[in-house]
């Protein structure tokens, strides 16, 4: 009797386990297939967009009509961005593709810039045309390689799922550099490696002055190098502590990114703030940014008071003539943006953010890397145009709320003197910048973009 119970139970368990197993297996297959189909779609779209990119670049090189050239550039740009977006959806983590990615990024910048400058009525310069031809050849190569791989994949023998399995998932970030060590075992990986190897062989085009540089080239901060003790002292003074009053400070490390800086950690005496961090530049000993860590209680002061507190703090630290330009309140703090004002002209590149905790009105954060690097007294010219003349360039449907002179950076990080008009259209506030020399509209911004409210 007992024996029969045992065997029956065993049989039931085996049958149930079998059913569960089959179901799990089928589910896994289904999920795998869906994932694979999405990868296939993303990849075949990359193939299509790179192929179309090569075609549009060819059209742009051939066309004699400015309008057609511009249209071809705009289309090429759209295809490039779509290709980049598709590439970002593929599990290519273990495959080194940096030349291909660099190429797409440069083409995007090139085609975008030319689709814009064309509208100023000038045709391509010899240098631009030569660049265009080189990029077209490289795009054609990429398209051929991708089309070949796409054809092989369409045969149904190669799967992205296998590439995904090969890729590393243990590390926090996508590894790059020597991503493929040894011979790739997978045909897809092999195909992409051939593409990348080919792309690496093309000479790097010189885009200097044609497209905006990928990032601002940072000049070094002037001044003598300071030591770690000096850095600690500067950070403590900035955060409102001193060794005499029981605060302890140390330099954790020296950061080699430009501008070189010391990372200072301060442990204040007992109180609300548990830790303070600051980066102090090695040259010149300027505070690039500062943070105080503390539990932030319920709000007792108004954001308007916070602006006043931030301003007082800046003045006490030697930041003169700062005007508040933006404010954002979140999680019990106010982050207030200030720009330097030189004789009534707002200098946007000289920008700092001060964070004030709204529980007791303590300045608990500062970000001024841009200001510390770029701030200087500028030689500002008298503007060519009067404000009334610049205003004629505005869209007549706008209501101007306020106006003034300002300096902004263009895409090439060049400073430009502009008239700034804050305008209203319905409920929305826009800021329009009109070049004070040429009268051209340089930029239109909507207030609150990026989540920062303009004051």
């Amino acid at each position: 009797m007992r024996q029969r119970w045992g065997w029956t139970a065993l049989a039931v368990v085996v049958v149930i386990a079998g059913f569960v197993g089959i179901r799990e297996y089928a589910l896994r297959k289904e999920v795998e297939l869906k994932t694979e189909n999405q990868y296939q779609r993303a990849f075949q779209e990359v193939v299509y967009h790179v192929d179309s990119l090569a075609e549009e670049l060819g059209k742009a090189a051939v066309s004699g009509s400015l309008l057609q050239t511009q249209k071809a550039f705009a289309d090429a740009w759209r295809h490039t961005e779509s290709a980049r977006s598709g590439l970002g959806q593929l599990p290519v983590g273990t495959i080194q593709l940096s030349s291909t990615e660099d190429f797409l990024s440069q083409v995007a910048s090139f085609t975008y810039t030319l689709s814009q400058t064309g509208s100023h009525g000038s045709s391509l310069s010899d240098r631009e045309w030569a660049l265009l031809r080189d990029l077209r050849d490289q795009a054609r190569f990429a398209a051929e390689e991708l089309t070949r791989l796409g054809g092989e994949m369409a045969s149904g023998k190669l799967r992205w799922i296998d590439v995904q399995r090969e890729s590393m998932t243990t590390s926090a970030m996508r590894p790059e550099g020597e991503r493929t060590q040894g011979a790739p075992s997978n045909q897809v990986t092999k195909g992409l490696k051939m593409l990348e190897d080919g792309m690496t062989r093309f000479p790097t085009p010189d885009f200097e002055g044609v497209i905006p540089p990928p990032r601002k080239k940072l000049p070094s901060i002037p001044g003598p190098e300071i030591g770690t003790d000096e850095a600690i002292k500067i950070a403590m003074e900035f955060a409102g502590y001193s060794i005499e009053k029981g605060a302890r400070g140390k330099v954790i490390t020296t950061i080699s990114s430009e501008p070189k800086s010391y990372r200072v950690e301060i442990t204040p005496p007992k109180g609300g703030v548990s830790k303070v961090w600051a980066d102090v530049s090695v040259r010149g000993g300027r505070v690039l940014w500062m943070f105080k860590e503390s539990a932030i209680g319920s709000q007792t002061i108004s954001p308007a008071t916070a602006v006043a507190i931030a301003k007082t703090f800046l003045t006490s630290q030697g930041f003169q003539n700062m005007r508040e330009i933006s404010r954002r309140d979140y999680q019990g703090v106010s982050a207030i943006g200030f720009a330097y004002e030189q004789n009534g002209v707002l200098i946007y590149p000289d920008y700092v953010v001060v964070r004030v905790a709204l529980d007791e009105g303590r300045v608990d954060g500062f970000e001024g890397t841009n200001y510390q690097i770029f701030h200087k007294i500028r030689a500002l010219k008298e503007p060519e145009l009067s404000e009334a003349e610049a205003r004629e360039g505005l869209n007549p449907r706008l209501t101007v709320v306020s106006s003034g002179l300002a300096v902004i950076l263009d895409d090439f990080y060049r400073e430009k003197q502009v008239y700034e008009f804050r305008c209203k259209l319905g409920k929305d506030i826009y800021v329009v910048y009109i070049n004070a020399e040429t009268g051209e509209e340089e930029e239109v911004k909507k207030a609150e973009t990026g989540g920062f409210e303009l004051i």
Partner: protein
Amino acid sequence: MSIRVSRLIFAFTVVVAVVTVLWHVQSGRVFNDRLSYLADTAEFDLADPGQSYSYNLELMARVISAEAKGEPYIGQVAVGAVILNRLNHPHFPKTIPGVIFEPDAFTAVTTGHVWFPPVSSSYRAAQDALAGWDPSGGAVYYYNPAKATNWWVATRSYIIQIGRHIFLR
């Protein structure tokens, strides 16, 4: 013999059941909301800054929370800054969701931990990163040396270690 067999089967079934339940809890498929008591759940007090902005903020806060919960505050801001630094780097997608959901870019997204309720400090950290703070020193990578295999690290240049994370360029 038969008693031993049935006991064995019983024990086996119990073990299977317990392992299944634990696995589901670990992978976040059930009890997702129950786990929130572990984290002080954030208040959603965002002053309507536009749909796409608040979605990006929410995503960033989730990644920061899942990747850097328990790290020093600047370590949390630094993770947010890495996401933003990637936007301006040619090797990465150009949108915040693109960067975050790039396959195998963030462990927390791969494992699903990103869908656990975020801790409130991660919202402030995300906002601070958006406001311009970058304690990572311009990093586009980071890893936890205790967890990650670091065979590829040699090819990137070291910037700084904050808490358990090493930030790289």
